[in-house]
Each structure stands twice: as C-alpha cells, then as structure tokens.
C-alpha cells in the first residue's frame, strides 16, 4: 500500500537554528514528490517538485532533497515567518492521484 510518513509531527526551533524535516514514502514507481507549506486556515502553497533520487531544489532558506526512500526539507537559519505546517505528497506513476503525509508543524521562536 502506498504510504507517506512525515516526521517529526511538530518541531520548535529558535530563530537561526537550522533543522530538517523528513518525508519517507512507499510507492510503486514515483512520478513526483511535492512539498507544500500550509498556514493556519489556508490552502497548501506549492514549494517544490522532485522527480528523481539525487535531485535537489532550493528556495530562500529551504532546500529539498530526494533519495529512493525519503525526502528531506532542510531549513537554514529559520525566521518566525517560516512557522507553518509543511506537507509532503507523492504521485505514483500512471495515476493522477496525490498521497499526502499528515505534515510537520513548525514553530520558529524569535
């Protein structure tokens, strides 16, 4: 069965304290892995797409990496405005469907 597991469930960081969020997945033939940011009461906002192991994408303080079994979202020197829930999703080859993890709630303290 296809699965996406994110860890930790919640993370509190001091401003400037770098860390990583994990997304492990089990899927038959990965079409793509996606990272989203979601603020309270709003829809998820697209961040990155990764297609193959070894691929990396960066945007400001965020960097996403992909292996054959997991993806990491590295947050370098976070700021309070990075506080949000980060969602990971996978899309299996041959399907339109996305399977989401339950997210990591990140809180960055000033």
């Amino acid at each position: 069965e296809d699965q996406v597991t994110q860890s930790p469930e919640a993370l509190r960081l001091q401003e400037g304290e770098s860390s990583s969020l994990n997304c492990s997945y089990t899927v038959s033939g990965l079409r793509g892995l996606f990272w989203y940011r979601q603020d309270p009461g709003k829809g998820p906002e697209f961040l990155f797409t990764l297609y193959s192991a070894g691929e990396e994408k960066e945007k400001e303080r965020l960097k996403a990496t992909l292996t054959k079994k997991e993806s990491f979202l590295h947050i370098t020197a976070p700021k309070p405005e990075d506080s949000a829930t980060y969602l990971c999703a996978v899309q299996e080859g041959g399907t339109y469907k996305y399977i989401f993890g339950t997210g990591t709630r990140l809180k960055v303290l000033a």
Partner: protein
Amino acid sequence: DVKVTQSSRYLVKRTGEKVFLECVQDMDHENMFWYRQDPGLGLRLIYFSYDVKMKEKGDIPEGYSVSREKKERFSLILESASTNQTSMYLCASSFKGEAFFGQGTRLTVV
C-alpha cells in the same frame, strides 16, 4: 499565477441539507480534486476528475458526489449533510506535476 478559487471561505449548514461547494481554476488544467482535511488525518481524497464529465472516486467518497460540466469548474455536493462532514474542504487542480490548491472552505454542519 495559477488561481484556484473556492466559492466560500466559511459555511454553516444544518444536518440533512444538500450542500454545494464550488471550485473554479483559471489555468485550463485537466485534473481537479476535492480533499477534506481533518486534524491528525491529513488530506484525504474524496473525488477527482481528469476531464470534463469524467470522475473517479477517491478514498472517502461516501456521502459525496461531484459534477464537472465545464473544464474550469468542479463542484462537490454533500447529498445530505451530516455532522461528521464538518471539515476543511480543499479543491486543487493540476496538469501533470504539482497540484495547486484553493484557499479552502471551512464547513460546519450543525
């Protein structure tokens, strides 16, 4: 920028009412999705559509139906609203890769 617009941010409906949630996208995307999001359960797929008048059940279709008469519009229908359908409803559209989400509709059934 891709825009996915949901007709309402907040809705309060009575048990037994028929409820319509509307979603419109402006990017000519083939695929559209309806998810519900509940604490601890993440995003769960209700229905998706890969073309006009085409639909497929997701993981939790019971109590819901959908309509896609035009490419840009995808409607979710709660045939007879129940309290266990109180949730955040998210519409999304995609072409091949990443999905783009609307702002969400917080539905409360009383």
